[in-house]
């Protein structure tokens, strides 16, 4: 099955701290990865964020920014994970 779009879901999980969204977005902007949607919640100081991004014009490959964001997550003290959107659409939509 061909993917309709080149969308990727970035999830960030961890203890809330100043500037998490800013740091992730700065990196994405540098690499020309477009943020389509952001939602986030904080439950008992636990930060949970999900971003939907479009990587069509990305300057770097999927593999490269997955690695870079993982490293960035370690720096901030959160876990950053990137997955192609299809897995969520497949599982939850008929």
């Amino acid at each position, binding site marked *: 099955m061909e993917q309709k779009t080149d969308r990727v879901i970035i*999830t960030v999980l961890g203890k809330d701290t100043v500037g998490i969204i800013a740091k992730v977005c700065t990196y994405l902007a540098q690499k020309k990865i477009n943020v389509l949607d952001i*939602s986030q919640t904080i439950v008992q100081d636990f930060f949970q964020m999900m971003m*939907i991004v479009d990587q069509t014009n990305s300057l770097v490959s999927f593999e490269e920014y*997955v690695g870079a964001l993982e490293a960035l997550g370690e720096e901030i003290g959160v876990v950053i994970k990137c*997955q192609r959107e299809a*897995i969520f659409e*497949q*599982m939850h939509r008929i």
Partner: protein
Amino acid sequence: MASLWEVHETNQMIEKENLDVRTITLGLSLLDCAGSNLAEVEQKIYDKITKTAANLVSVGESIARDYGIPVVNKRISVSPISLVGGSACKDSADFIRLAKTLDKAAKAVGVNFIGGYSALVQKGMTKADEHLIRSIPRALADTDVVCSSVNVASTKSGINMDGVRLMGEVIKETAELTKERDSFGCVKLVVFCNAPDDNPFMAGAFHGVTEAEAVINVGVSGPGVVKTALESVRGGDFELLCETIKKTAFKITRVGQLVAQEASRRLQIPFGIIDLSLAPTPAIGDSVAEILEEIGLEYAGAPGTTAALALLNDQVKKGGVMASSYVGGLSGAFIPVSEDQGMIDAVRANALSLEKLEAMTCVCSVGLDMVAVPGDTTASTISGILADEMAIGMINQKTTAVRLIPVLGKGVGDEAQFGGLLGYAPIMPVNPYSCEKFIGRGGRIPAPIHSFKN
């Protein structure tokens, strides 16, 4: 667009509940490798496997990275070797050379198992079939990743009791030749009734003769996901229970469908089937027995177990069928003993006997799987256990299989260690009374009356 809740739920399943794709199995026909010169056959087999499966492992890994879901095993199943080697192999030693070729090719492409060292003898044995079957103990002892299976019965043909008797001896000899590793060879050997042509799960996978040149079959897993979902409906009635299992099975299978389609696209090999089995591992929280406990049993094996397993198996199928365009293989709930911590605990607590396991195999997707028995169990007793299981499959028109390990040098109260996903197993007691005269009769048990449907 995906919502935060959906993303969270999926990732919980992967990270906390052991959701994974258990195997991407490349089914590959080797029928065109047949010939009368053994060296040429070996070369053709090696070349075809290493060429077709060259990217299998890397594609599996790239899919795992893209979707953030583990793809645990990458495997290959090939045409039954008794057919491929039929004209080139003059004796068992020749067949062992083909086993070693499979082993070498599988290692070259990096898969962790290759299945298809097999013979289909439900009605009768050719000379080649017999040579292959007699070579199995040595072939399994001398190779690392080759898996073997023999189909000795079917609803359409009845039970080949000569085959059953021979397989009892083969299992014993396999145990003997690998006794220094807790008779590990038997872990790679399955005896079938109604074996499916498109099963992606080892050790019983082979590429059926009616299959295409090459196909991608995918086996999903996820007992932990079902168990967690059932925790939220504790005390609810059976309708709620069944609905919950069905919905969960649907979600799990959809992931398998996605992975299968992607693997098929990236490898440019047609998609075959999804096997929507709940396949446990020894990891805590990855157990079918724990689902049975969550349904309301103190231990797997308690009264009610067969009914609970029957509903589980059926609901998994109902949920999964809609999630995939092609479902096949074994599809249902596996009940291996050594690969499931809850089953191991049940045996240790004396809650689960071999006889209860046999009853459970009437309603599960496979059969007596990864059951360790005392090393002094006779070949005829093993054949008797095989015959019982084959009869269940034949009469109920379902696949049944036996993977029995008579652990040489060990008895009831001891434990056998197989390592990794194969786990460990307490040795289970076997009924001590003899069936030697029954097994000694020879010949075939005719096909049941309901096989005549023409």
